[in-house]
């Protein structure tokens, strides 16, 4: 119900494509990959082997999640 999955613009007759064209996927793929990898880095690896910020707060804050999600923690 609350899922705005269908584009509400009904001007063009919307169809379910047989497949999504690669040209249409690519920009979104780049966006999702960059965003996803940055997020995963900060959750999984920041202040472990490498640090963008100094200190240990990020490491300690995400400590349990890192261990349980399988990232090498310390």
């Amino acid at each position, binding site marked *: 119900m609350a*899922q*705005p*999955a*269908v*584009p*509400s613009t*009904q001007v063009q*007759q*919307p*169809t*379910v*494509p*047989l*497949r*999504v064209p*690669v040209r*249409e*996927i690519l920009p*979104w*793929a780049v*966006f*999702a*990959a960059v*965003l*996803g*990898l940055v*997020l*995963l880095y*900060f*959750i*999984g*690896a920041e202040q*472990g*082997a*490498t640090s963008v910020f100094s*200190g*240990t*707060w990020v490491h*300690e*804050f*995400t*400590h*349990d*999640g*890192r*261990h*349980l*999600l*399988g*990232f*090498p*923690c*310390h």
Partner: protein
Amino acid sequence: MMRSLLIRGMLAGLAAAALALVIAWIYGEPQVGHAIAFEEAQAAASQAQTHHHGGGGAAESEVVSRTVQKTTGLITAMVVYGVAVGGLFAIAFAFAYGRIGTLGARATAGLVALGGFVAVVVVPFLKYPPTPPAVGNPDTIGGRTALYFGMVALGVLATTAAVIVQRRLLPRFGTWNATIAATVGFAVVVGIVYRLTPKPDAVAEGFPATVLWDFRIASLGIQVVLWATLGLLFGALTERAFQRVRSTQSPHISPPGGTR
């Protein structure tokens, strides 16, 4: 199309993370607690001998309290992980839909989730399994991090390659045999890499084996729940959305614009 898929993937990832959190609290956290208790007992024992033991620094002044680590810290980590994985999953789904046979949205999402689980969980798990606190030498964190992410990359590449190979072999050998051949090829490649990569294992002496086992099974359970929820929920929602779009095409079922 892509925008709604991506948003749906991230929301399904969020829901998957919420369920996985329950598993983490019930099965994972007790093991983390046992491991930390062991770590502290060891630190106390070595502190009684020498003044201070030189690597970890886990028993020093707490930057973040255990309570925060167990609650907001774990919630944040799981939610961010779920949303990130959900977004990447949506992209993988978009590439797979209509390209891995004549499968519907639900079956495609299920297979993509299975593939993703094998690629980023099972492949690294078998060689570099998750380690509870007190397991793993802090001096080797650099190498272990590189090896772990390398193994994730191998899993993604090998799984993608296996799918492409299966599609290529399919016309000549049929679905069943092409799938077996691609899976065997995948297993051989991963097996060879397992044999060639180093294993910097550092289970502390006297660390209880049951805690290690239970921790790793809990960790695997978290991932199973996360990926299963993601795949099934994303598939169900996408199937429904596609059906709604189809129903707008035949005006006597529902008038255009009146489907929301």
